[in-house]
């Protein structure tokens, strides 16, 4: 599994765009990049997944440069309810039932 590195914490004001970058220098050719969100006392929640370039859904955008050694999760116009821990995971998308390996994630605090 590719090792990932992301900031331990970030602060943002409400209404701002937040970008969380994850480094994964050893990403393999067939690996996908997946982001999860975890609110306090809740289970992680899948946010977005991508392989290259840009992916957008109703929650976030994921930017992946051509070399795929990093990725950026972008949250547009955050609100207080976006305060959570965000995890970047890298691995094969459909390798059977390989477990998810969570790091410490990035703790995002949104301030009013």
């Amino acid at each position, binding site marked *: 599994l590719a090792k990932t590195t992301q900031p331990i914490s970030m602060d943002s004001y409400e209404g701002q765009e937040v970008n969380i970058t994850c480094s994964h220098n050893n990403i393999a050719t067939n690996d996908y990049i997946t982001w999860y969100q975890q609110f306090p*006392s809740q*289970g992680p929640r*899948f946010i977005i*997944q991508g392989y290259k370039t840009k992916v957008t859904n109703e929650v976030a955008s994921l930017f992946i440069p051509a070399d795929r050694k990093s990725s950026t999760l972008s949250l547009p116009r955050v609100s207080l309810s976006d305060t959570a821990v965000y995890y970047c995971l890298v691995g094969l*998308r*459909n390798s*059977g039932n390989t477990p998810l390996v*969570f*790091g410490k994630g990035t703790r995002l605090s949104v301030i009013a």
Partner: protein
Amino acid sequence: EPEVTQTPSHQVTQMGQEVILRCVPISNHLYFYWYRQILGQKVEFLVSFYNNEISEKSEIFDDQFSVERPDGSNFTLKIRSTKLEDSAMYFCASSSEGLHYEQYFGPGTRLTVT
């Protein structure tokens, strides 16, 4: 939207007692998992289950732990003789065929061992 459910939400037990944590995965999912998270720490994998057998388990999942899918809907985690260090949030998750990185987690069971 379908969701994973877990019961109970909070379980308090005495050291040495057996506990069973219950989960109802999303109905058309085929892969099932248990994770745990000790307060303030990372989410840790315990076990994965597919086709009525354990596929993979971590070092945490020792002989005190067992999993079962007793019927077509429930997925259970049993801890035979709880220890203080088993106190944690236990999350059940499920995924559909071929999309194991898109796992759906339940709300968790908070286990407190006294």
